[in-house]
């Protein structure tokens, strides 16, 4: 019996020792892995990202069961922090997406926080939507509040939830009263909800932040336009005109300010001033801008003052440039152009725009007029995608130049991300451009209707004027001609521009309309 028990005890001992040694080995491995992770984290903290990223990538994607799941999520998070520091935002976003729904609450919060920072850098609405959808209400307070507040508010704006957006922007301003994005967006919300005093106050606070900046500062110009637009919407025409005049001639937004000021002048019945502004807007300097609205406004003013000759000229310009545009667009869109065709149209327009900017002239014959295509590039339906595409290409270039590109695994990983992101954004760009063309077609149809109405009124007014003229005596006609004579101005070179010997670009904004009212009173 004893003989039988000894080997049994011996075997048990051996098995026990075997398990103890395995446990010790596992503990050692675990310690080694932990210290490897700590080393990598220290490298991230000391900005040695070139070395840290390959190590973290191994842990995050190729370790296969060596590390605990939570360590893998941590490695992904640290890798993203490094890539973010290197300016590789799109590549940094990818590991965080998985983390946001797989990792523990602590890691997930930090991952979403970083994801929001990335959306702020890349300005990608789809990424923002994704990040916001991953924010749990209970976790909101743990995130860095100012940025989260802004991003949640932006998301609410996109969804048309103005009350929620207003609340969120206000809470951002409670913490940081000089937040420019919150001030501007609040101004926009108040304009939309017709709370015009509040809109003005919000834009005023924003404008005051730029008091010491030059008037040429772009952001200052946008803030001041916000003020002018609030005043316009409040029907305070003269105040809005004064504000529009604060935008200098060499400011990027000058043309826009002229256009809006012309409306304010027209609404305040300052027809001569409006007509003068129109001369600048319709000058050759802006001939490649698609702007039928300002031409229609010009025609309306000319109709008001019975300047029929000028009106006929304006109608000729409209006939040549805009009348057939709707038909051209309709025909082109009816063919249901493929994504490839639209993409080549965008590429062609970008190329032509570049050639123009270099000062070269070129043949602009196209199925769709060039000025429509060119204006489309800056449309809100297209511009964000173009910017995103550009930043993606820049980022890919940056990655290819970095030391990380030499690592085959990381290179494959990053290139795959860029390829897929570029393809997605390209499709969005194409569909955005298609939507812009469809919208333009609808707008042109509406403008054409207004044009027909002006044409009808023109013929009617001309007929009435001729009728009145025929019933006048010779003396009355002479008096009328004397009143309408503008020789004084013509002799002094006042027809359209008051300058002599200066380049015509400088004259923008100085055109003076000196025609008179030619309507014959009863």
């Amino acid at each position, binding site marked *: 019996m004893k003989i039988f028990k000894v080997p049994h005890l011996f075997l048990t001992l051996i098995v026990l020792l075997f398990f103890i040694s395995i446990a010790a080995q596992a503990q050692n491995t675990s310690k080694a892995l932990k210290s490897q992770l700590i080393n990598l984290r220290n490298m991230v903290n000391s900005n040695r990202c070139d070395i840290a990223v390959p190590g973290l990538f191994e842990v995050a994607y190729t370790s296969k069961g060596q590390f605990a799941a939570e360590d893998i999520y941590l490695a992904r998070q640290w890798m993203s922090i490094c890539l973010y520091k290197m300016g590789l935002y799109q590549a940094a976003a990818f590991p965080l997406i998985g983390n946001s729904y797989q990792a523990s609450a602590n890691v997930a919060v930090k991952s979403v926080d970083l994801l929001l920072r990335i959306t*702020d*850098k890349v*300005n990608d609405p789809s990424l923002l939507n994704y990040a916001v959808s991953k924010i749990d209400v209970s976790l909101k307070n743990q995130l860095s509040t100012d940025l989260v507040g*802004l991003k949640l508010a932006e998301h609410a704006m996109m969804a048309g939830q103005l009350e929620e957006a207003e609340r969120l922007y206000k809470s951002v301003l409670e913490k940081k009263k000089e937040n*420019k*994005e919150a001030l*501007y*967006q609040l*101004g*926009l919300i108040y*304009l*939309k909800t017709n709370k*015009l*005093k509040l809109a*003005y106050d919000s834009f*005023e606070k*924003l404008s005051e932040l730029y008091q010491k900046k030059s008037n040429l500062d*772009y*952001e200052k110009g*946008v803030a001041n*336009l*916000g003020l002018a*637009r609030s*005043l*316009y*919407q*409040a*029907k*305070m025409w003269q*105040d809005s005109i004064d504000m529009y005049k604060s935008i200098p001639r060499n400011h990027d937004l000058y043309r826009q300010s002229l256009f809006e000021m012309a*409306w304010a002048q027209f609404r305040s*019945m*300052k*027809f*001569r*001033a409006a007509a003068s502004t129109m001369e600048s807007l319709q000058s050759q300097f802006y001939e490649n801008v698609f702007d039928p609205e300002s031409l*229609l*406004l010009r025609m*309306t003013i000319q109709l*008001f*003052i*019975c300047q029929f000759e000028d009106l006929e000229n304006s109608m000729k310009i409209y006939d040549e440039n805009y009348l057939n545009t709707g038909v051209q667009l309709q025909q082109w869109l009816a063919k249901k152009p493929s994504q490839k065709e639209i993409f080549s149209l965008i590429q062609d327009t970008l190329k032509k725009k570049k050639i123009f900017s270099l000062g070269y002239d070129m043949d602009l014959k196209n199925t769709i007029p060039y000025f429509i295509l060119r204006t489309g590039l800056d449309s*809100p339906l297209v511009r964000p995608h173009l910017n995103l595409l550009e930043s993606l290409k820049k980022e890919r270039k940056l990655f290819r130049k970095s030391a990380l590109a030499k690592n085959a695994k990381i290179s494959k990983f990053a290139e795959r991300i860029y390829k897929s992101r570029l393809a997605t954004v390209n499709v969005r760009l194409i569909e955005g451009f298609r939507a812009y063309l469809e919208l333009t077609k609808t707008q042109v149809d509406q403008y054409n209707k*207004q044009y027909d*109405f*002006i044409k009808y*009124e023109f013929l009617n007014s001309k007929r009435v004027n001729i009728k009145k003229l025929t019933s006048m005596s010779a003396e009355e006609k002479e008096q009328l001609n004397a*009143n309408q*004579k*503008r020789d*004084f*101005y013509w002799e002094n070179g*006042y027809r359209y521009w*008051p300058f002599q010997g200066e380049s015509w670009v400088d004259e923008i904004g100085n055109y*003076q309309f000196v*025609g*008179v*009212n030619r*309507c014959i*009173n009863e």
Partner: protein
Amino acid sequence: MSKVILIFIAFIGFVVHAEEASEVINVKKSRRIKLQFEENLINGKADSPDTSFLNTKDEYNYKKLIKIRENFIPEVEASGTTFKGK
């Protein structure tokens, strides 16, 4: 006499309108006096056309003519990205 009454009514109308407008937004005016030359550039023998323009098409309801711009909200929206993250 009738002219005096008309001018008085016009003045009252102007004051009322100005008060209504100032209730909406109080624009901070610069203390410096600005000389506006733009509207006065043309000093000829002819009468100021702006005055006659006001008197001419008064029977005309221009709201029917074209789509009047009531606001520039689309433009404000389009410039929104300017202050992103600032």
